[in-house]
């Protein structure tokens, strides 16, 4: 089973909390925007992405089962 990472960019404030937790998936670049590097990450990333969902202060990240 694979999963998709969905970010609500209207909520995201680019504070890079998610990037500290899962740098393979999230990157806040010098332009201050968040980029999702892998929107269908490997299953091995699931725990980290789940943690990012919980730690995102803006509730901007969701996981959708693909």
């Amino acid at each position: 089973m694979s999963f998709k990472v969905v970010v609500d960019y209207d909520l995201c404030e680019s504070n890079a909390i998610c990037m500290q937790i899962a740098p393979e998936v999230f990157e806040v670049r010098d332009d201050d925007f968040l980029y999702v590097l892998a929107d269908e990450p490997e299953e091995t990333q699931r725990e980290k992405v789940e943690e990012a969902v919980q730690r995102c202060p803006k509730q901007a990240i969701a996981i959708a089962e693909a």
Partner: protein
Amino acid sequence: MDSVAVIGASLAGLRAIETLRRDGFEGRIHLVGAERHRPYDRPPLSKQILAGDWETERIWLTSDEALSDLGCEPLFGVSAVALDPETLQVDLSTGDALDVDGVVIATGARTRTLGDPLGGVFTLRTVDDAQSIAAAFDQGPDRVVVIGAGFIGAEVASTARERGIAVTMIEAAQTPFERSLGTEMGAVIVDMHRDQGVDVRVGVTCEELIGEQNVTGVRLSDGSVIDATVVVVGIGVTPNIEWLVTSGLDITNGVLCDATMLAAPRIVAAGDVARWPNRLFDEVMRVEHWDNATGQAVHAAKRLLHGSSVGEYAPVPWFWTDQYDRKIQLAGRTTGFDEVIVVEGAVEDRRFAALYRKADRLVGVLGFNRPRHVMRYRGLIESRTSWSDAMAAQF
């Protein structure tokens, strides 16, 4: 460990449960929450909910299905009234008791008040509070008085202004935010409010709330009277520890824990209610921020499950506040700092990052619309970077 009671059904309590399950705990989990709601997020209360931008539906941190997937047994509208740390029996307001093998204390904090409330006088902590204030704003009051220029008060002032309501904000200190940001940076926030038309009065306190049943005005310590039909009191919070008076735990200004978040054998605490020695700053602290409630709950749950091998909890405290179109963030511990220097952007543009020095160490970073810089410097604070190395860093 076969069963755990999580007391307090908000951010810290929920994150603790999620962590217990993710780390493999298969026993029973009882969730006891004094509010009648399932866990919800408080930061939007003073922002989107008060602004009328969001339906209440958007603040839930979890759904009934997710809670039942977590296999937790929720008791909403029920309070814990006592804890016996020897037997781990938790007495409930219903007269029932829970007998468990582990306890997570996550009872948070409640707002301080100014005594007997008149109609039209509010504090803001719960979704019910937010809905009452939003309803009062909907009436189109001539003026709102915000008592106390803390971050919540400042957010209420900001949201009221955005709704076109006149605002007076009064603050006892000469410089609002002085304790958290220092005089210079505190003034930046005050100027921002004045530019948005807020009547900010400093060095005065509220002597009297005038009115019979409903408030009609506020008398200040300088003798002046401000007419207002809505008053929001934002004078800080106090930890919810009364239910632990008979427990024998140290509950002076919060539940005292060791550096790993253990309050007593098989009892951990997290969130706004917890006090602990943060070794990174060699300071016993209690932190009232969202990110701490989350991180500390994860740590406390792991501590309960895996023992002392999880190590100490020593984060760089971090919070944000959204006022007008500015996203303000502060990371670190600025109490008693020696110097603050702007390293990026310009204060005039209200788009900048400033660093705080204490002795020869970087201890804090403040950002106005500079989230990326705040996080980078937060990393430097965490690695105990010297001031000169921090000043030399380029992001």
